[in-house]
């Protein structure tokens, strides 16, 4: 009993307070530092405290300008720039995960304080700047009554939308501002529970296949192994028939997919597991190998075993691929777009990544859009801040970036699901 008391007296305050400061290790790039796993009695938590922008604006590099081109949306997530320059915005909020433990009730309440209270729109909004002055004067609802739409892709005259439960198709003609017919279902998507509900979408360069990112149904199997059937993977769906096959697995939450210009390769940003410490596990950007297994749930960053998973699977751990590029732990990468020469010389070759921002860390990270420079088709060098200031020095959070899209005419479109705004960053002329 004495030992128990001593343990309580000494360890309890330290454990309850979490682990204090989170020294930032060098966690970018191909070989990030991976510290030992740690978890106190309470997870480290710093939840965003929302505030309005007022006269403030996000910060962009010298020589660039930023403007809000649409406000008061209903939870904008991903965007798509159409061939005529119109922008489609997918708005919604999904998920139907039951609260299984007292922890889910408490954590759910706390985390909800860091997000927008607005109801998800379940629609696509179209924005148009007809005269090219940077003001998107037309705003219409292109399609509604969707079910938490997220991923968007255009192939010819077909607009594909990844709802949280199904991949659907709308017909699209250039200049159209409203869908003329209800969506046609291409394929059902795994939708039970939907702990991670977002369905990312990209179309292959030839338009024959659609890639759908399907997140895991838990942080780390705490909803049971049965809930993880067909989860944490990327599906390849035949656009003509709707037939699907797993393209790559073990990707915990592939929240954005993009095809690399030139190579035609599929890339993804993936959100990794929580509650192993402030500097575990790094979220990453990676090219996705067909048939590859990326570790979840058995291991992370290659063969680092996660002891929280039972039964374990050493054979799967041995087969786990190391991702290409660490973005840092808990940044919550939700957007991915390859750049174009029109973005300016410094940001021409590489990928933009939207980082929604952390909760599982006492010192918050993310809450910005970064640019990962590429050389010869591979990431080269540390990420460069591109849009910052979402989390102010006063500790208040004014926006949280989600999807990023490059307009080939020379603009980066950023969806912000906290202030319900679409931001447009342009090189100053």
């Amino acid at each position, binding site marked *: 009993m004495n030992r128990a008391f001593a343990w*309580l007296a000494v360890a309890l305050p330290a454990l309850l307070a979490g682990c204090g400061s989170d020294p930032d290790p060098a966690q970018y790039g191909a070989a990030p530092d991976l510290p030992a796993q740690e978890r106190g009695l309470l997870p480290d938590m710093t939840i965003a405290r929302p505030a309005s922008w007022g006269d403030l604006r996000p910060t962009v590099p010298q020589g660039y300008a930023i403007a809000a081109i649409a406000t008061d949306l209903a939870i904008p997530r991903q965007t798509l720039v159409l061939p005529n320059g119109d922008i489609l915005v997918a708005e919604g909020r999904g998920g139907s995960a039951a609260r299984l433990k*007292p922890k889910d009730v408490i954590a759910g309440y706390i985390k909800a304080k860091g997000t927008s209270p607005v109801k998800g729109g379940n629609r696509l909004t179209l924005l148009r700047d007809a005269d090219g002055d940077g003001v998107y004067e037309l705003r219409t609802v292109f399609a509604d009554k969707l079910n938490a739409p997220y991923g968007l892709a255009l192939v010819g005259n077909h607009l594909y939308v990844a709802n949280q439960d199904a991949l659907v198709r709308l017909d699209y003609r250039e200049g159209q501002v409203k869908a003329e017919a209800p969506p046609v279902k291409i394929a059902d998507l795994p939708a039970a529970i939907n702990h991670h509900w977002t369905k990312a979408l990209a179309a292959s360069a030839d338009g024959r296949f659609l890639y759908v990112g399907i997140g895991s149904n838990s*942080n*780390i*199997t*705490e909803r049971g*192994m049965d809930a993880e059937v067909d989860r944490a993977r990327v599906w390849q769906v035949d656009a003509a028939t709707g037939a699907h096959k797993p393209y790559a697995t073990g990707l915990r939450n592939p929240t954005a997919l993009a095809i690399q210009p030139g190579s035609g390769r599929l890339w993804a940003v993936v959100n990794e597991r929580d509650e192993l410490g402030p500097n575990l596990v790094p979220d990453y950007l990676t090219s996705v190998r067909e048939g590859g297994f990326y570790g979840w749930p058995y291991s992370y960053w290659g063969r680092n075993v996660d002891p*929280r*998973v039972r039964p374990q699977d050493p054979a799967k751990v041995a087969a786990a691929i190391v991702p290409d590029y660490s973005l840092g732990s808990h940044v919550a990468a939700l957007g991915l777009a390859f750049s174009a020469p029109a973005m300016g010389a410094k940001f021409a070759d590489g990928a933009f990544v939207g980082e929604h921002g952390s909760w599982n860390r006492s010192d918050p990270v993310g809450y910005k859009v970064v640019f990962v420079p590429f050389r010869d088709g591979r990431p080269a060098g540390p990420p460069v801040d591109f849009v910052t200031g979402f989390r102010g020095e006063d500790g208040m959070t004014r926006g949280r970036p989600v999807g990023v899209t490059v307009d080939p005419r020379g603009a980066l479109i950023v969806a912000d699901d906290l202030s319900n705004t679409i931001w447009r960053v342009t090189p100053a002329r």
Partner: protein
Amino acid sequence: MAITIDRRYRSDLHPFHAVLLAGAVPLFLGAMLSDIAYARSYQIQWTNFASWLLAGALVVAAGALLWALVDLSRGRRDGLWLAYVLVLAVTWLLGFVDALVHARDAWATMPTGLVLSVVVAVLACVATWLGFAGGRAGGAP
């Protein structure tokens, strides 16, 4: 033929205090058994059960502890009663730590959660015995 039993317990526990105290035992015991079932089967539902059983046990045990502390503050200071309050307080504190351990995901609750659940279940039994024994010892006619 009627049988009259002369030896009757005259517990000093208020009936509601007694219900709260005795109620904690099956809840802590259930948490322990659920943890054992999870450790043996890896079926996640058992650890969910353990979490809720612990939460329930902490609610009723908190009621009993509060009641006991009020009695203590009103001058009830005999040895058995002090032992009861102390053991119940330790039970609750370790039970709370156990509940926090059970808020970890999946197998991260193990083995600490199971060990704590066993310790707390035993302590809850001891606290309950002391609580009721205190009534009997103090209330001899």
